[in-house]
């Protein structure tokens, strides 16, 4: 009974694996192609076309979160903010359901590959989700709904910090955006707390991600510390930052006769994951079989544009990086690589054991199982790859009115890559006008480089 049971089990597993081979070969190849085609669409500034492409690609049951995240991002870039939020809302609900551990998926991932586990979102996916939802609500001029996102982001960051190891998931920009939302609503103390937390996050991560404290944030801290009468803190900031700040209420907030333009620049595209596979002959000379180990790595997509220069109504301002998503992705994968490797090796051993058992009963079954094992061994290359490479920000106080915005996109050498004009930008008194802009073009990377 035990032997026959095992062989029956092995047969079942081999059927399962054969099915997985068909699916994963098609899906694995298609997914990289889709990534590159969507990259081309976005470079051509055709998010609608990218969206159609995404909708046409088959979605595995375990990839629903990823699909919604990508859909939400493309809809955001297409300027369909309400639809984008519907997609993000769906992603968020699925993530909440998936936060519980699945015993079945854990089991099959040890037998087949990591794709059988549901994609539940990386920590920074969960943060960026709220950032883009808030940006959508701000574009829709619903600051109170954006405020809800700021609160949810705070909740999310606290929950992530609870189970994060050394790496704090608070990356700064989420907090900074929250501060601007509170400021626009005239909630000064909440704004001050958010700015302060953003400042701490930028300082903590300076070493890891190389993002300096943005100058605009320095001004915000000084302005609000003065407004709130925090004398010691004001003195500390004034000593620390070499920036000049006009007296008066923050522009684009209650009590100010000015509005403010907040220009969010989504620069380039985040790195995407690919796989490295190593094939080995079984070290046991009596066994004529192959072992495959597959691990993921990140393919860098360096952005064409290094920074942007905005000119409006005779004023000029240059963007500053407020979040380096690419750097975060690399650090994150590096942190998780030991666990991924361990799981991959455990899988190799489990598969070998099964092949041995099946082969004892029936050599052909053993050989087939080996073929299936080699083919199904695949690295998990899923990631939210429609995110930008980095996010940059420029803030400009302006008198109420209608403006036309000149944008010069500059490469790393300071040369102008292209000039764009955005017209009919409305600045209202006491309000901020949030504009999310993107330029996805990436520099060509030499073959094989990553």
């Amino acid at each position: 009974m035990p032997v026959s049971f095992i062989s029956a089990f092995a047969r079942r597993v081999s059927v399962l694996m054969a099915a997985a081979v068909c699916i994963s070969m098609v899906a694995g190849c298609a997914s990289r192609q889709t990534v590159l085609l969507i990259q081309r669409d976005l470079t051509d500034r055709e998010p609608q076309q990218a969206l159609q492409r995404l909708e046409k690609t088959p979605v595995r049951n375990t990839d629903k979160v990823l699909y919604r995240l990508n859909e939400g991002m493309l809809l955001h870039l297409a300027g369909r903010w309400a639809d984008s939020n519907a997609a993000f809302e769906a992603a968020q609900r699925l993530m909440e359901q998936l936060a519980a551990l699945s015993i079945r998926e854990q089991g099959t991932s040890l037998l087949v590959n990591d794709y059988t586990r549901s994609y539940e979102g990386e920590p920074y996916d969960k943060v960026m989700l709220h950032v883009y939802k808030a940006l959508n609500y701000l574009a829709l001029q619903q600051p109170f709904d954006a405020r809800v996102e700021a609160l949810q982001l705070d909740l999310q960051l606290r929950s992530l910090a609870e189970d994060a190891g050394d790496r704090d998931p608070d990356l700064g920009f989420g907090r900074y955006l929250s501060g601007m939302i509170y400021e626009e609503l005239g909630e000064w103390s909440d704004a001050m707390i958010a700015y302060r937390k953003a400042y701490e996050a930028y300082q903590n991560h300076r070493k890891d991600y190389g993002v300096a404290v943005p100058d605009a944030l320095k001004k915000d801290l000084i302005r609000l510390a003065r407004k709130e009468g925090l004398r010691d803190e004001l003195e500390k900031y004034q000593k620390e930052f070499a920036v000049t700040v006009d007296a008066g209420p923050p522009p684009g907030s209650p009590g100010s006769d000015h509005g403010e333009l907040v220009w969010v620049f989504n620069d380039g595209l985040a790195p995407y994951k690919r796989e490295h596979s190593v094939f080995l002959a079984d070290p046991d000379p009596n066994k004529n079989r192959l072992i495959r180990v597959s691990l993921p790595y990140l393919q860098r997509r360096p952005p064409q544009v290094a920074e942007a220069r905005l000119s409006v109504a005779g004023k000029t301002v240059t963007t500053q990086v407020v979040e380096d998503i690419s750097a975060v992705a690399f650090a994150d994968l590096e942190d998780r690589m030991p666990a991924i490797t361990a799981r991959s090796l455990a899988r190799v051993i489990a598969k070998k054991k099964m092949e041995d058992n099946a082969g004892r009963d029936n050599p052909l079954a053993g050989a087939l199982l080996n073929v299936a094992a080699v083919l199904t061994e695949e690295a998990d290359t899923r990631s939210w790859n429609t995110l930008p490479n980095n996010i940059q920000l420029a803030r400009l106080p302006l008198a109420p009115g209608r403006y036309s915005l000149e944008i010069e996109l500059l490469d790393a050498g300071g040369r102008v890559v292209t000039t764009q004009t955005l017209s009919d930008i409305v600045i209202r008194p006491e309000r901020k006008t949030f504009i999310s802009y993107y330029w996805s073009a990436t520099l060509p990377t030499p073959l094989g480089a990553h």
Partner: protein
Amino acid sequence: MMTRQAKYLWAALAGSLLLAVMGGCATHVERMQVSEVKDLSGAWNDTDSRQVSQEMVGDVLSAPWLANYKRSHRAPPSVIVGDIRNLSHEHINTETFIADIQREVINSGKVEFVASKEQRQEIREERKDQDINAREDTRKAMGRELGADFMLKGTINTIIDASGRTQVRFYQVDLTLISLVDNRVVWVGQKKIKKLVENSKLRF
């Protein structure tokens, strides 16, 4: 060679798989009473909305401001719904429970409601249109609107305390009725809801 036991095992497996598939296919619908409490995710839901509106209606109709106003004016007061701000962690639709409150209060006959800003705008446009197109004896004149005596304003706040997969969600809804004549606050209604949400740590 498949042994007898293995055959049975396969048959059982196939049978249960078939059942599982069939069970998964059929959509199951069950009619519920509107008043039935069903908490799924722990987020703000219809039950919360209903509880808040019921409590507020009972409170606002039995508070002394109403009797005081009637004594001095000999007419029911007219109220307008102002800004109900959602300051909570969730995207809560405040319109549903405001509509509930409005319905109950209007039907009680003790208070009159004035249409909201957007509604008034639309009605004024209609009146303007009547001015040109409607028969004279059916035409409604401008400048005869009912001005509200009180404005209902409010906020929804939440405090969430979370640890791991467990959350305590605390909702507080505050409604204030303010006199438009002199900014006096004549009534304050408050409803608190507290929930313990324990999310499962495991799933299938």
